[in-house]
């Protein structure tokens, strides 16, 4: 183990406890967000996902006040926000953006209050940074099991309702005619989205969770023609970005003579690079596949 880390220029990487926790929780976040992200991007719900993640920061802040697990805090707030958005009325694109924006604003306001209370009434330092921007290396080992459980639930939900969710994403009417209950699918999707947001917020922070939720999925959608393929690509991209980011953050301790840069920065930067690469690749591949000369049926030479 030790020698492998050293081989990669990171002595002690794999034997470090915080690194192991970071690798596991980070992997959970990457895999879960790949599954949920593809459906969110597909349905044009990227903004709603982003808003949920931001609003979940209020829950993260509350968890410091109450001394409960931050994962529970993020999850509780994400679910509350998800259901408020659902019940405040959605459906139409513009109206949905409006509702989402309003819930987002209210949630961030709460977050400002709770973070203020965190700093003034408890002795937590750095709560704001870790809630908003995450700190993978600071996650206690005790959170590994809850993170795994939350991710497992997402996989279970999506695995079970994979096809109805897909059909509903293609067209709600077609799904309804096939006997799919749109209400149930919508509900389960919200539950799964909340779980995914909570795991991502825990890993790279509430504000940056979006990057993981929609970045790899956005890139993957450009690279695939099939839903399953898109999810796999999103997993590969997300996992590479998260693990690569952890590795780089660890190494940056040596690069910047003892001042390691935050993991979240590296993860998000890698996600962005992958997204750019995917867009460029799709452009180039699309151009190459295109032109075919057209002739009138009777004018062919």
């Amino acid at each position, binding site marked *: 183990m030790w020698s492998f880390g050293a081989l990669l220029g990171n002595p002690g990487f794999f034997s470090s406890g915080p690194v192991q926790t970071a690798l596991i929780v980070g992997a959970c976040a990457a895999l879960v967000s790949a599954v949920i992200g*593809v459906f969110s991007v*597909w349905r*044009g719900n990227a903004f709603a996902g982003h808003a949920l993640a931001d609003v979940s920061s209020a829950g993260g802040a509350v968890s410091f006040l109450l001394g409960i697990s931050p994962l529970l805090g993020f999850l509780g707030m994400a679910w509350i926000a998800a259901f408020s958005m659902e019940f405040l009325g959605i459906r139409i694109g513009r109206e949905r953006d409006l509702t989402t924006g309003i819930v987002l604003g209210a949630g961030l306001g709460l977050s400002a209050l709770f973070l203020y209370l965190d700093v003034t009434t408890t002795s937590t330092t750095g709560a704001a940074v870790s809630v908003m921007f995450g700190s993978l290396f600071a996650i206690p080992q005790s959170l590994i099991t809850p993170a795994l459980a939350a991710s497992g639930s997402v996989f279970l939900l999506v*695995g*079970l*309702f*994979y*096809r*109805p969710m*897909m*059909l509903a994403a*293609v*067209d709600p*009417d*077609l*799904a*309804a*005619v*096939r*006997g*799919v209950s749109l209400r149930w699918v919508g509900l389960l999707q919200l539950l799964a989205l909340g779980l995914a947001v909570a795991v991502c917020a825990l890993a790279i922070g509430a504000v940056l969770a979006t990057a993981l939720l929609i970045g790899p999925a956005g890139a*993957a*959608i*450009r690279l*695939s*023609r*099939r*839903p399953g*393929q*898109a999810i796999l690509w999103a997993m590969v991209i997300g996992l590479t970005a998260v693990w690569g980011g952890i590795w780089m953050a660890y190494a940056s301790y040596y690069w910047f003579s003892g001042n390691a840069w935050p993991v979240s920065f590296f993860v998000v930067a890698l996600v962005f690079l992958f997204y750019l690469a995917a867009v460029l690749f799709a452009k180039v591949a699309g151009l190459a596949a295109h032109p075919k000369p057209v002739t009138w049926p009777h004018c062919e030479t």
Partner: protein
Amino acid sequence: MQDPILSVAHLSVDLGGRGILRDVSFDLHPGQLCALIGENGAGKTTLLRSLLGLTPHRAGQVWIEGVPVGQRRILVGYVPQKIVFDVDVPLRTRDLVQLGLDGHRLGLPLFSSGKKTMVDQALQMVGAEAFADQRVGELSGGQQQRAVIAHALVRQPRLLILDEPLANLDFRSANALVALLGTLARTQRIAMLVTAHDMNPLLPVMDRLIYLVGGQVATGSVEEVVQSEVLSKLYGYPVTVLRHGQRVLVLPDAAVEPSGVIAAGQVSSPEKAN
């Protein structure tokens, strides 16, 4: 005669506080191919959607195979008037058709050669093999329409409800689809309800017409309704029915000055040039 596959009794539907359908009643029997006509905004789409339980009705009842709609899902194939597919959605034509087969099932899709055969057959029926592996969002409007028709057909429904299935199709595809519908109605006894502004392509295969006007319906056989006087009266626009041997052609009468016939706001184009 067999029991009707679709039975509509005293159906009334309101949308946005406005009565769209009033006291609509008709039956559809297995193997019947019925055209639903009426001008833009007459309520054709609304009627089809309420038959499927997608739009709630205020009064009346709809039975499909003797079961009230909404109680149990019966095999019905539905092709909506319009579906928008985003270009970047990772879904091939083949995947869309497969969702018509097992999209309501729980669990992950496992490969099955039986399913693949059914999907391939449905693709072949509508002539979609050539773009089976392309993304649906990248197809042309008519190709998308054929993909959705394959989606509706793949489970071999007993009732097919098609909203403007010919609207985007070229001559060849339209005629091929009409021939396919005729065959399915005759050989597999599938009942079909089809809306169309241009009824000409459908004339060889359809056996009944439902005309929707002012929220109410009039029904009749093709022989009864496809007459110059009847159609002109129904559309409120001069229409000529030409007969040439076996072929029948319905033509809007361009020679007549239309301004006196059509009241403002009622302009309809029952006969779009194909």
